[in-house]
């Protein structure tokens, strides 16, 4: 059985903290940070990185296109 | 008497309404006033500023390049407006969020911990009233009773119950403004 893991990189300064990516993630990886970025936005980050499957859902809906997605697929 | 003021900060800080109350207060004591916001998409970035003039005479230009008083509520505004205060003028700022402090020596500089005080009072929304209080302490161009009248005029009826709270905030500001 193929095992899959993923990770996302959020461009913290580009993120506007809209939160649209959060509900888009099927595995609840993302949350908005308590801290704000330079523009005063609570940016998105991987709260549960281990759950990320690299499905790209978050990136697809991010209005500002600030999420980059990586994924590895390994056979166990 | 003519007082030319710039108030500058973030959009959410109540900059425009602070200016409006100040202007209304001027009207309450029969003065001429003008209130000129900068507007447009440049303001989308989240900054807001307004030029308020209160005068005994007819007001000429409502936009200005230098001011008697600058009330500054974030770093961006500090960068932009510190230099525009007339020599001998006044700069009041809230140090919260300020990283580069003002350096001019030919003006009088005051600080008011508006954000902190408002939070202490349990209502961050009255932040701008605290700052207004600070300003009125330094430059008592309008009397408190006229400010209250102005508040009444500018607030919709349903908010009039908040006026005492606003008055407290102003008093708090008056008490806590300090020269820096």
């Amino acid at each position, binding site marked *: 059985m193929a095992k899959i893991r993923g990770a996302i990189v959020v461009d913290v300064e580009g993120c506007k903290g809209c939160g649209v990516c959060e509900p*888009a993630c099927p595995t609840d990886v993302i949350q908005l940070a308590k801290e704000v970025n330079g523009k005063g936005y609570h940016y998105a980050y991987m709260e549960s990185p281990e759950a990320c499957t*690299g499905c790209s859902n978050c990136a697809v809906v991010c209005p500002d296109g600030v999420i980059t997605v990586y994924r590895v697929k390994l056979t166990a | 008497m003519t007082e030319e003021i710039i108030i500058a900060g973030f959009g959410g800080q109540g900059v425009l309404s602070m200016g409006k109350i100040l202007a209304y207060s001027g009207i309450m004591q029969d003065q001429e006033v003008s209130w000129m916001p900068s507007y447009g998409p440049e303001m989308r970035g989240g900054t807001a500023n307004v030029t308020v003039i209160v005068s005994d005479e007819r007001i000429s230009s409502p936009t200005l390049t230098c001011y008697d008083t600058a009330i500054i509520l974030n770093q961006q505004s500090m960068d932009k407006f510190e230099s525009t205060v007339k020599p001998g003028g006044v700069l009041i700022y809230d140090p919260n969020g300020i990283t580069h402090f003002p350096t001019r020596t030919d003006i009088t500089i005051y600080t008011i911990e508006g954000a902190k005080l408002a939070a202490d009072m349990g209502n961050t929304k009255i932040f701008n009233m605290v700052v207004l209080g600070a300003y009125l302490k330094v430059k008592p161009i309008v009397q408190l009773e006229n400010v209250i009248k102005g508040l009444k005029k500018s607030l919709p009826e349903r908010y009039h119950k908040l006026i005492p709270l606003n008055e407290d905030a102003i008093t708090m500001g008056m008490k806590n403004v300090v020269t820096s």
Partner: protein
Amino acid sequence: MSDIHTLSVQDIIKPENLVYEKTKLMTDKTLSYCPGCGHGTAHRLMMEAIEELGKENDTIGVAPVGCSVLAYEFMNVDMQEAAHGRAPAVATGIKRVWPNKLVFTYQGDGDLAAIGTGETIHACNRGEQIVMVFINNGIYGMTGGQMAPTTLPEMKTSTSPYGRDVNMMGNPLKMTELIAQLPGTHYVTRQAVHTPAAARKTKRAFKKAFQNQIDGKPGVSFVEVVSNCNSGWKMTPIDSNKWMEENMFPFYELGDIKVDGKLIEK
């Protein structure tokens, strides 16, 4: 080879593992849109479609007047900025003298369905071989949230502060259904971009629309995107998306309306 469970995030974030990044057909400029606004998503999906079709150098886009007036700052293809409502005429002008290029318009509901009604109807009726993208957020976003032709009944806007009174202000206009009636439209669909599934569907719609043009299919390919204007609606982005699902979608039903020149039976 390390076990997948023990892989660190740093191990995953490597060029060879890249599966999604912003297309090069979007510039690096920060979008001028409010946080959570669907305009940005729609931009990117369109640009992905054009990139995947390999048409970066053969595309000319027309931006409207509306929040997306600056689309040309973000879309990394040749762009023109049209007068309010006139993008279909501008696109007609381009396409007629460059019949082999891909030409698209990108317009809001005020632009396309109010001031630009004549240009919209007639470009569709002439069957211009262009792609028209229609961002319907039920409001004039750019000018501060005034009522649009597509504003829902009872919906509050800055020019219908007590809600849209259909008796005085008219009914919301389903421009997309109207132009689907015209023989000059080839493909007409209504989509959204607020969820991954919706966004992926929309991208397929964009691709199909552009492919139609590449294939010289007769007529307009028209993609409506029902989108939020959280600022104009005075909601958080998340709330606005929910409100959109609950209120906009029942009225503006998602899905294909016309495919290959044939109306879809309902």
